[in-house]
């Protein structure tokens, strides 16, 4: 086979596997229920806070801590056992006999699960964003609006960043499912990383600052070390502080790094290639 044919068949494999994953997700009531709870929570927070009654930027600030805590949870719930259960059910072996490559397999799993994840995250945020025009008092038409103060574009940026954040947590969970050899390992790794992302890395950074181990200048780099910190830096950098144009590149690298690195780990640990 030529290289082009190789690639075409790999892409075909990828979409076949992605389709299988999508079916699995849609057929798992627990996951569907989780997605519904996630969506209701995000919209509920929007309605409970004072941000949606004013504008998009305050709504971003209201939603940020919840998105930060709930998106990794959703990503991990969707992905932490995918490769592991294929391995334990023997499906991995079957797939190998069909000559499916590791990148095609991991890519397919990731694509399938991500599509569900992105739909839930992006969709919920869109609905939350739509509460702003509904809940805000009508603006008098005889007054000039200060375009610099607030903009739906800020919220769109936030939603896109949340999707990237969701993708990176999903890829980390995928790596966990590929690297773990038992269900216990997978749970322990998943929960451990989740706690580290949501609480641990930030707490360590604060502790390091408090003890003088490192200075405030290193904080942007420390934050970029966890997907949560990187996501938060990006939100404050490009979605909230709309007036100041200092793009936190290091955070973008951090978030992208987690996404690519974790996918690489998943590919490498999915199965040992036959020599």
């Amino acid at each position, binding site marked *: 086979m030529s290289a082009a044919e190789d690639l075409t068949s790999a892409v075909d494999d990828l979409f076949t596997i992605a389709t299988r994953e999508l079916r699995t997700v849609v057929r798992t009531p627990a996951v569907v229920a989780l997605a519904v709870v996630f969506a209701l929570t995000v919209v509920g927070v929007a309605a409970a806070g004072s941000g949606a009654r004013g504008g998009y930027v305050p709504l971003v600030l209201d939603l940020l801590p919840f998105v930060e805590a709930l998106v990794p949870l959703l990503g991990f719930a969707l992905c932490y056992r995918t490769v592991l259960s294929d391995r334990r059910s023997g499906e991995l072996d079957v797939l190998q006999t069909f000559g499916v490559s590791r990148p095609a397999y991991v890519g397919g799993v990731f694509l399938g699960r991500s599509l569900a994840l992105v739909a839930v995250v992006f969709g919920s945020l869109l609905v939350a964003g739509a509460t702003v025009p509904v809940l805000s008092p009508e603006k008098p038409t005889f007054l000039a609006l200060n375009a610099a103060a607030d903009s739906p574009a800020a919220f769109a940026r936030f939603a896109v960043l949340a999707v990237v954040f969701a993708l990176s947590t999903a890829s980390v969970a995928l790596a966990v499912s590929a690297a773990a050899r038992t269900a216990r390992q997978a749970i322990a790794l998943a929960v451990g990383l989740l706690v580290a992302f949501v609480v641990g890395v930030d707490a360590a950074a604060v502790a390091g600052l408090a003890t003088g181990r490192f200075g405030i200048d290193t904080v942007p780099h420390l934050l970029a070390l966890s997907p949560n910190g990187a996501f938060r830096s990006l939100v404050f950098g490009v979605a909230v502080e*709309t007036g100041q144009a200092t793009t936190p590149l290091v955070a973008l690298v951090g978030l992208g790094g987690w996404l690519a690195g974790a996918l690489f780990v998943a590919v490498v640990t999915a199965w040992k290639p036959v020599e």
Partner: protein
Amino acid sequence: MAFVTPTATRWVAGVAALVLVLASVSFVVPVSGTVSPVSFDDTVKTGGTAVDVQQAKTDGFEVPVAQAHFSRYRYIIGYYGVGTAAADVASPESARQFGDPLAVFVSDYATVSPVLDEDDYLRTEHNRHPGWVEASDAVFVVDSDARIPSGPIVVPFSDPTAARSFTDEYGGTVVDWETLRERSESSLSGRLDAFESSVESHHDWADQTTAAREPLFDRPVSTVVGEDAPTIEAAVESAPEGTAVYVPPGTYSVDSIDVNRSITLLGAGNATHLVGDGNGTVVHVRADEAAVGNLSISGVGSVGTRRVRATNESVDWDTRVQLAYGRGDAGVVLDGATDSALRNVIIDTPASGVIVRESADSVLDNLTIRGAATPSEGFMGIVLIGEPSVVQHSTLHDGRDGVYTHRADGSVVRDNYMEGGRYGVHEMYTSDMLVADNVVRDERIGVIIMTRPVGNLVVGNDIRDSDFGFIPAGSNTYVADNVFATNEYGMDVSGDRQVYTRNVVVGNNIGVRGSSTFPTNVVVRNDIVGNDVQVESTLGPMRTWTTDGEGNYWGDLPLADEDRDGAYDRAFQPSGPIDSELGRHPGALVLSRSPVMDALRSARDEVAGLRGSGVVDAAPRTEPVRSATLASLNATETANTTGAMTHTEKPNV
């Protein structure tokens, strides 16, 4: 799941990717567009009194204006008066509420050849309109002769040479924006000191003016009615200047008494009763240093207002108001009677009680005015127009408004009792007036300030059982040491840069109403307790009622003060659905401790200028400010519970 095929997956993936790419366009769309000046008409306007703005419109002189674009406020704020803009932009309230000023634009007089007219009002060549210049690029002439009716103005120029030639002609100095902001910056303690000394000087002026009118009532009696002259009219005509006409006890039917000379008309007290013919005004005083005392008046005509109904081009707004409020029938009219006085006079009137027109430094002392039973039938108890007067120790029953003022800048209304009318004190187009220590009961509104005046003082009043305790417009009003109890609404926080402090707001249906688009009002050290609804806020963004770490007392809240600094450790949102029930329902406390509420609370303090309307106190007090007053109102024990006080039934007014 037959519909989930690999082809479908490709489509779904493609659509998802497309949506994300489209959403990512938001990163390219500039969120903060270029900030450029807008038409002043399209701004949210503040500063400058209605007198300034109206008169500038009619007379065609200039009020230099500014517009501020903030990073976190939806609208553009327009300021009449560049000094006001500098003060506002520099204030910590603005920074917290609106974010950073992205740009401030001011009128540019460099290219319109400004001159001052005989009143020192600013005019431009051929009435040309000044353009805009960014404040940071402009220079400002301060302390020159240039003024508007309410005071001196700052004149901005884009060109320093033009500014200097202006100062050569009209004095003053040229400063830059930074310096102007520093000059305008004022700490709360500095503002409080200035307000307190203003209160004191108003009282001093009123004391001195009262003392100066005292001799009018010690004049020798030259004419006794019934002995030296047959009628009061005849006695008044014949009495020499500087003497008194004595009216012995009895009921006197009079037509209309005209006091045209500096004499004093003196009765024997209640027993001296002047009865008009039911048409027009009973006593007209048209001379300086004239006085009326110790008698009672009835039989006043029933015409309250001689309003101009037709739109008549030749009648300006000021005359229109004067006709509407100053030309009706009254018990006594002081007309151009400078240094005159009324004392111990009882007036029963279906229209106005006393109308004071252009009678500077007159004193109305210990009057009792009984108006019409229903406000819509009657008219004003006392009307002050054009010049400052003292109104004190008087009782105003029923009728429409107790005291109505029109351009009576500098007046003092103190120690009066008002009951049963529409408004207790009604300030129109009046700045720099002191309303102190009045007791108001059962009115529609206790004290109301309209038409955007500046520098009014409302202190020590006790207003109860009314629909509204207090409503202000305008700016820089000092509202201190008042009691607003058992009203429908206690006090209204509106206008701009007002200072509310040491007020007791207790047992009202709604304690405080925040109804200003501007969050620049200072509300600190008030006791706001036991109101059914503590704060209602429907207009404007989220406001913080804390200054220099000082907040208000909202009752005994179930919150911690670990550091014992006298303020609860977390911010309190009296307008919020959870905090407003704190201490009333145990569920509110539990819910308020949830991580959700914690997270939303901490997010709430950011970008306040863009949030939904509400009020936050960042440092709620653990102890009341005026505990003795609260105790006397029986509101200490049940601080934050309803029913501490009972609402009295009010007749419909």
